[in-house]
């Protein structure tokens, strides 16, 4: 029974989803144990950059700091960094106990559990897996994540090949998303908005920077993203339908792509090409799925019960938060974490 408070809600994963769940659980008086495998909390979000240009552009990355602060001060709960899930004991009524293992030492400990929340997030698509963009081989090809790391370290000067010179940047959308050949025939939800924000940031920070965005379809969910696109158009960002399949390094420096403009094939030169890489299921999803008996869906993300019951796993007592059940943007993750906490409390209410 979940209502027994000697037992905790186990949260697997300390990225923004896990932190959001932890925060809301503790605000509702439910003790948790958060287990994070790596050596730090915050996941991908922690390494991404602020996209503000004179004002906040709602990339939502700084949210992770607010969550982390609240979670760090939670009483009656614990955070185990450098630990992973090793086994569970469940009964018909749900999860009973879990064992967690310290990644370094292998030492195990057992925790009385009332429920388990999966918040293991996603892996970024590695463009090396699908050779054609020359990522890792051709200088100047980077991923949206790499670009964020550069912005975060305030190293944008490094982007221009000639200091203070012009900088032509292209974004390639849907890299590793909407691609049936790799089993990723879904939209990763976050990358159109992220690329447009990054484009605005580059134009703001780097004088003489021109940006082109090559897309298949732009996904602009949310009420203000459409305005973001208009702003980008006003600031001179070119939006071009169709993503070039190949990048060629030029002898004189720079990168050449063939794009189709007004029905004509045109060769264009860019200094940097940013691959807007999609979200893939976490590499540990399969192992965790086995431990918990929580099934994965056709894409490799955690399956949920129904369309409307989208945070409960078919496995009893297992809840799924954030991008490990479906690719998500940060606001989606925050809502999903809230829905998980709501489902846990509703289940307690029902049981009592």
């Amino acid at each position: 029974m979940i209502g027994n408070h000697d037992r905790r809600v186990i949260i697997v994963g300390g990225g923004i989803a896990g932190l959001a769940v932890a925060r809301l659980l503790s605000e509702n008086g439910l003790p948790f144990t958060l287990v994070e495998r790596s050596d730090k909390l915050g996941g991908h979000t922690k390494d991404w950059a602020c996209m503000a240009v004179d004002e906040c552009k709602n990339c939502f990355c700084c949210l992770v700091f607010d969550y982390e602060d609240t979670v760090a001060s939670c009483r009656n709960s614990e955070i185990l960094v450098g630990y992973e899930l090793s086994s569970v004991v469940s009964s018909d009524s749900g999860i009973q106990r879990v064992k967690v293992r310290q990644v370094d030492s292998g030492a195990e400990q057992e925790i009385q559990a009332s429920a388990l929340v999966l918040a293991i997030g996603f892996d970024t698509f590695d463009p090396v897996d699908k050779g054609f963009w020359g990522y890792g081989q051709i200088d100047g090809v980077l991923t949206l994540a790499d670009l964020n790391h550069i912005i975060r370290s305030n190293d944008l000067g490094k982007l221009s090949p000639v200091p203070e010179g012009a900088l032509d940047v292209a974004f390639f959308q849907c890299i590793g998303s909407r691609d049936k050949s790799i089993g990723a025939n879904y939209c990763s939800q976050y990358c159109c908005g992220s690329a447009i924000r990054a484009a605005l940031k580059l134009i703001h920070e780097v004088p003489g920077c021109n940006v082109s965005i090559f897309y298949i379809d732009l996904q602009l969910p949310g009420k203000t993203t459409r305005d973001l696109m208009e702003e980008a158009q006003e600031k001179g960002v070119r939006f071009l339908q169709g993503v070039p399949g190949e990048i060629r390094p030029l002898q004189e420096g720079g990168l050449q792509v063939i794009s189709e403009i007004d029905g004509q094939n045109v060769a264009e030169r860019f200094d940097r090409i940013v691959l807007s890489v999609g979200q893939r299921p976490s590499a540990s999803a399969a192992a965790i799925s086995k431990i918990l008996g929580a099934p994965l869906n056709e894409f490799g993300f955690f399956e949920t019960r129904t369309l409307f019951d989208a945070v409960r796993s078919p496995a009893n007592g297992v809840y799924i938060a954030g991008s490990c059940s479906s690719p998500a943007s940060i606001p989606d993750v925050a809502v999903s974490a809230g829905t998980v906490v709501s489902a846990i409390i509703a289940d307690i209410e029902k049981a009592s």
Partner: protein
Amino acid sequence: MLNSKLQTNTLQETRANQSALVVGNGLTASIVTAAVKSLGIDVTRSKFGLDSALLFHSGGRGPFEAFVRFLNEGAFRCETTASSTPVEIIPVEKGFVVTFDDGSRSEFGCVFFATEGNLKPIPNDLPDGVNIVTPGILKVPSSQSACFVLDYEEITDPSIGMNAMRMALDNQLSGGNSFVLLRHAPVQGMLGETLYETARLAGVRFLRFGNIAPRIERLQTSNDLSIKFQISIQDIIERGEDILIECDRVFVTVNPLPADIPIAFKHLLSKETDPLGFLIQDSVHCLTGKSFRRGLYCVGPSTGCMDLLETVFSASAAAADARSWLGLLEQAPSSSKMSVSEQCIRCLTCLRLCPHAAISLKSQPSKSSVNITGARCLECGICVAECPRNALDLKGFPEEDFVTLIERLRAQNAHDSTVVFGCHRSAGRALSEIELPEKVIFFPVSCAGRLSESILSATLLAGIKGILVLGCHHGNCRSKNGTDWAKARLDTMTTRLNTMFKDIGSFSYKTMAANESPRMLKLINEFLDSVDRIPD
């Protein structure tokens, strides 16, 4: 070690008087009511606005029948306990006092604004007989041809676009003939791509236009019962001649329209709109339906969200937050965070300015007094800094701390020092990753909004080189406009002091986020350089 930390804890009790008011007549209010009820919170639902269900289904290929069932589900059509409409809502210490149009008055711990929305009007350059896409299943007689035009005037909201795509698929599967004209195929959610693919495989024809929207004309027919349309479109993929389509029905998507804010909510909500007029700003602090007015939530179409699934999830998330809010209301001893002195003349400046509706007026037989709800107050200090009588102080971040700082600066004769006032949630956090240059004193504040003109000028007049204020970015302030207050005050101070003194130090205001430590260091160094450049 683990066990020593393990303590029992109970789910915070919600009291009977801690109930929620859900305002709205439609499906959204039903969804919110169900979500709040499922967490053991008492709900009163009050009438307001439209009762049509204007939520679109974007749930990918997911079962459409489930959607229809969901729409009709009895559980969500729960009884309206108050048949009256709220006419006044006032934040008080334990929540909100709501007055209804029948004269009754009740207290609620939290209030959900969950009214239905509207769609923009059909573009007026379209011929008669063109329909707009509304939620639900397309009921056209089979073997009709239907054309769905997305992104006609502006890019279509993805949930509305997907609803249209699904209607096209339904029509195709029931023997009709469907065309979808668009600029961007909407593929929201994990199954969006699958829906798009299924529609293509089923024979729905997709055509993609560029900057030039398709031209839609009505064909003259002898028999008025069978309306026919002709559409010409310049397809940017299959270039060449314009493509002509003839069809029986045309559906165009239009985006949501912000609704009027009812009078009862005006004082609470008029400042809670985004630039488009929808409720709730796109802000890190407003995710999951939270408004800056603590205890007041907005969910669904009034916030610009026309998506059924998103509304279901955000209602649940808001309910979980509301539950913790009710717990907080129960615990927090009133006004523990703030002191109000005898100096108060009840001008109500503080009440007007508090972004979180934490200040209320307590009427007492002898004399009324301002009252601070501890649970609501986020210690931004905006009220403290703006009180004309200096009657307020934050207990956790008292004025005394600033006085101590200023005295220390004077005593040290710190003319070569620079003070950086930084908001704790941005600069304060980024600080841990940088090493401050010499002679820089960092002073964290609960919010830049606490920095009153008097603190800023007194610090500067202590004889230091300069003051740099680091607030959160505009639009990212936890107290909404604390950072803007700091900027405005610095601006005023610049004008005032510069006319009086010549050789006082300089000051500057910059904004940043917690993940910008390298930039923070750069801002500080740039400020130091600019200060040094000023000749003595």
